[in-house]
């Protein structure tokens, strides 16, 4: 598959609490061709992004839902369950952006990721049998304890939620609130920051971004796409829609593929799955 030029946007306005506003902006973003809606922003969470992402699951069609998850108020057991639910309810469009909360450092955010992964990996993707005839609901040998113990979090498992459709929801990091964990799917660069070798980077778009220059960086493999922060959704979405059509030759994947990972060409790598767990 040809690489897909990713269009991503942060939506952090407090109006996301308002169903009419949220419906109009999230569906506008979906129609504009945006692949990822990052809900909330580091240090500013005027609503619970996980609740907004769940609400948006049946309201939108293709857009990836990326709640920011602050370690100040979240625990991996709750986060892993919420994200599993959002992944199922959105037919595989869940992602997340963990951020260190007040008083926490980035090690805690990385620990949150590892703990959540260990919980998802406690369930094999084929654990559920659901055979009415034999009465077997699941294969018990395909569900295991996590017994995870990290620098901050400790969780035994197993999760009382099945493995997400995508295996793990897409992991997005924001370079302005970085954490270091293997297998981060996408990194949103800071304004003016150079691309990080070996990572799928999203370049932050300033005013009137230079399309030709971005295409050159994309073709050279330096960036995976562009990230906006919506300040004036009406105008911003029109600009992004124009961008999307100008880039249509790099944007075939949007209409195909069933899960977000498949559409964006970011499969879950086998070596990400916790030791002793299942593919």
């Amino acid at each position, binding site marked *: 598959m040809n690489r897909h030029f990713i269009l991503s946007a942060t939506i952090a306005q407090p109006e996301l609490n308002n169903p009419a506003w949220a419906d109009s902006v999230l569906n506008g973003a979906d129609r504009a061709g945006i692949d990822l809606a990052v809900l909330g922003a580091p240090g500013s969470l005027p609503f619970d992004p996980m609740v907004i992402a769940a609400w948006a699951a049946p309201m939108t069609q293709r857009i990836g839902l990326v709640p920011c998850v602050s370690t100040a108020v979240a625990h991996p057991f709750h986060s892993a369950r919420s994200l599993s639910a959002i992944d199922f309810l959105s037919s595989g469009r869940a992602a997340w952006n963990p951020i260190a909360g007040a008083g926490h450092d980035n090690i805690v955010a990385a620990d949150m990721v590892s703990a959540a992964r260990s919980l998802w990996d406690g369930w094999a993707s084929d654990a559920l049998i659901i055979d009415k005839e034999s009465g077997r609901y699941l294969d018990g040998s395909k*569900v295991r304890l996590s017994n995870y113990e990290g620098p901050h979090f*400790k969780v035994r498992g197993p999760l*009382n939620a099945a493995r997400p459709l995508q295996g793990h929801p897409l992991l997005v990091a924001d370079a302005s609130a970085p954490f270091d964990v293997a297998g981060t799917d996408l990194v949103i660069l800071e304004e003016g920051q150079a691309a990080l070798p070996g990572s799928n980077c999203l370049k932050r778009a300033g005013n009137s971004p230079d399309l030709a220059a971005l295409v050159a960086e994309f073709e050279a493999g330096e960036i995976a796409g562009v990230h906006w922060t919506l300040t004036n959704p009406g105008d911003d979405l029109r600009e992004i829609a124009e961008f999307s059509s100008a880039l249509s030759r790099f944007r075939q994947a949007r209409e195909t593929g069933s899960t977000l990972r498949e559409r964006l060409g970011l499969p879950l790598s086998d070596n990400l799955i916790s030791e002793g767990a299942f593919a």
Partner: protein
Amino acid sequence: MTKQIHLWAFLQGIGHYPSGWRHADATPEAVFSMDYYKSVGQLAERGRFDSIVFGDQLQSRGANGHTPERVAIPTLDPIALLAAMGAVTEHIGLVATVSTTYFEPEAVAERFATLDRITGGRAGWNIVTTAHPASAWNFGQDEMPEKSSRYARAHEFVEAACELWDSAETDGNAVPVQYRGQHITMDATMPGPALPQGRPILVQAGQSPDGRAFAAATAEAIFCPAPTKEDGIAFRNDMHERIAAAGRDPEAVKIMPGLSFILADSEEEAIAKDEAILDLADEALCIEYLGESIGFWLGGHDPKEPIPFDDIVAGTEFPVADITRMLEKPAASGIALGEFASRHVRTPRGHTVFRGTPQQLADRMIDWIDSGACDGFTLQPAYMPGELEIFVDQVVPLLQKAGRLRLDYPGPTLRDTMGIAA
């Protein structure tokens, strides 16, 4: 005006019988899809239910590290589920079970504020303190705090959350809230706007003296078991006394006992249908169910041998005294493990079980309401979605015809629907 009946739909993914998912009209695969929740949410709304309720556990089913293959049904996080259902329904309330023991008040306050706002004022909170010891291990603890201390924390937790909701100003100015209790220390702000309902409806379900005291002080609706009408009357009278003693208006608190039901065209058919569903729970399934409910994996034990009492007491994950009390007598009687387990699964969890025709059920519900046994019912379909469809299509019109159930919703919020002022 004749007293109206309040209806809640307690929707555990695949119904309330352990074997319900094997029924021909059950769709167990569907419980991981949005289409299913959209259709059952709209079904309950068509039945003019006040609310949907989801229970919750903070541990996987199983014991001693074993996951039972027939009863370990994975569930979806209730708040995520209800937020998604809120997007595809217009009126129905959304009551989520959330523990005060394994969350922090600012996180819970934020979640419910968002749920209430994004659904236009339809959120309710079933406040639980979590009793399963295996939950503690998922939150880095070796053991669960003892019961009265969990309830003491719950009191402070709800108080702190309410202060935070009350602080949300319509003009968007966030007022810092500082809460200092024995169990909760919270410094937080809740940016506006104010919640459409002011606060989510506060629901409580505990039965112990600690639970009843907590409900009397806080709850606006109570979910409880009432095996008979007389039990319902006694419970409601007791709660009314406690609520009045706590300085609140008893009539403002809705008592909503659980009601399991199996409906058919005649009473005989309903009983036969019930037996057939229970028979889907074969001996092996019953043993897994028992093992899960006593915190001890029974997989290696012969169903034909007596209950392995000493092994269970030595190995249970639950408080030994509770398990001893439960199993002492049956173990002494020499009953075989398989036989005991098959009986255990037939014992409802203290909720009334109705088997009969739609007309009989409608009459029974009206009689309970008029006798002062309750203000409404928390319906627990044995299997899903088939049994709930029968209720909505056949019992709801009878209740409406009798003038006991609304034909339409009175207003946009769950408080409007329940008739509970903020």
